[in-house]
């Protein structure tokens, strides 16, 4: 990671970007041409190649967010604050994709866009929790205070993923037994379909990483634009009482 990026692009991210594009192309080919409709799920199985990878990688980014939040509280370096923000944002986007694809899959499968399936419901709650986290990051005020509070929200949210999941799972088990998505994907997918799923994981991991790196760099540049280098700021502050170097550049008579 460059310390002072002047652009958000670098050779590494260009390679990553090209790899992302290529993997998406391969995924599209696999999802629509190579694999056929599923015996049980029919054509809707193709949604799984997006749905399952996005939710897994969303959790990965939530984990990254929690780790960066903890690191920020330990090190108090804005590197981790910006990194936590970037991973939180990408995570929310992925959770949103998960919800949309889940609903699109639910409509033909269950005849309704929404059923109170444990995973869908947990995902919706996590989505709201992390939207709250992102809102916290945009509030006005002292950036240091905000960063600390956002880090705490990130850690609390991550710590609550399991309790939320547990309670919702238990609730939905009263109504419809085990998780529908888990059963469908585990039992039905094999062979080319399994390959397509793995390509999906790879493609979304690459795309999300590419987005996250750029988001981090934008955040880092914004962070630098908001403040100045500490040494320069200290020098300017010390110069305040010397009229000769006042900001107007004029010596008072």
């Amino acid at each position, binding site marked *: 990671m460059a310390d002072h990026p002047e652009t958000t692009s670098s050779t590494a991210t260009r390679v990553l970007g090209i790899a992302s594009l290529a993997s998406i192309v391969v995924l599209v080919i696999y999802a629509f041409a190579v694999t056929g409709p599923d015996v049980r799920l029919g054509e809707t199985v193709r949604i799984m190649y997006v749905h399952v990878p996005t939710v897994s990688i969303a959790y990965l980014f939530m984990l990254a967010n929690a780790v960066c939040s903890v690191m920020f509280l330990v090190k108090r370096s804005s590197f981790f604050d910006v990194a936590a923000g970037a991973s939180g944002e990408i995570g929310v986007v992925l959770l949103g994709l998960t919800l949309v694809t889940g609903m699109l899959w639910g409509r033909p499968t269950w005849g309704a866009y929404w059923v109170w399936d444990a995973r869908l419901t947990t995902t919706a709650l996590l989505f709201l929790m992390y939207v709250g986290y992102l809102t916290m990051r945009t509030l006005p005020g*002292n950036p*240091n205070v905000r960063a600390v509070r956002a880090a705490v929200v990130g850690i609390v949210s991550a710590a609550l993923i399991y309790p939320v999941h547990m309670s919702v799972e238990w609730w939905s088990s009263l109504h419809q037994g085990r998780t529908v998505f888990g059963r469908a994907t585990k039992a039905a997918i094999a062979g080319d379909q399994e390959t397509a799923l793995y390509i999906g994981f790879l493609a979304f991991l690459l795309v999300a990483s590419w987005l996250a790196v750029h988001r981090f760099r934008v955040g880092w540049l914004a962070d630098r634009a908001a403040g100045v280098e*500490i040494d320069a*700021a200290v020098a300017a*502050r*010390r110069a*305040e*009482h010397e009229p000769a170097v006042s900001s107007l550049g004029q010596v008072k008579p």
Partner: protein
Amino acid sequence: MPPAILLRDTVSLLGRYPVLAGLDLRVEDGEIVLLRGPNGAGKTSLLRTCAGLLRVASGTATVLGHDLCVDRRTVRPQIGLLGHATGLYDDLTVLDNLRFWARAVRADRPDAIVDSALDRVALAERLRSVAVARLSSGQRRRVSLAAMIVRRPRLWLLDEPHAGLDAEGRDLLDAMIAEAAASGATVLFASHELDRAVAVASRCVTIAGGVVVADDAA
């Protein structure tokens, strides 16, 4: 005896702004030091840094023998900070407030200490069971002063303590500063009331642009 305050090249930030820009200051135990300087010089920030409320971004800061970069929490109960705000719960009575703060610093016999502190700042008996919100600003100032005495701090940090007090209150404050120093406490106070302040202080430190620019005997 270690100095009460020892700042070396201390930078502290308000948001991203360096309010203290590499400030050096040494205050000996038992000194009374007047802090002066134009608006925005960093007087309040210096007091808040010494109180451990502003994080030291670089340099070192030691107060009452505690390194503020390592641990700000343990030393704070030994410090009394009187800022522009009252530090009192508006909706609680004077007695409720002071008893709460006295218990918070683990005072022995808190009720008795509170009564004697209120006697010291000459707050009328009838005002003591009134909500702080109903007091005048000068009366609130006296209650804040009483809250300082209740804490029995080893280091007094006062930010414009004379502001809002009547003539009698100002004399009272000066007497309290002298008493505090006589009992071995250290006092650092910012003031624009130079004539009055110079009479109380043993030393006068002028700051501007977040650094010390003059340091004279008063």
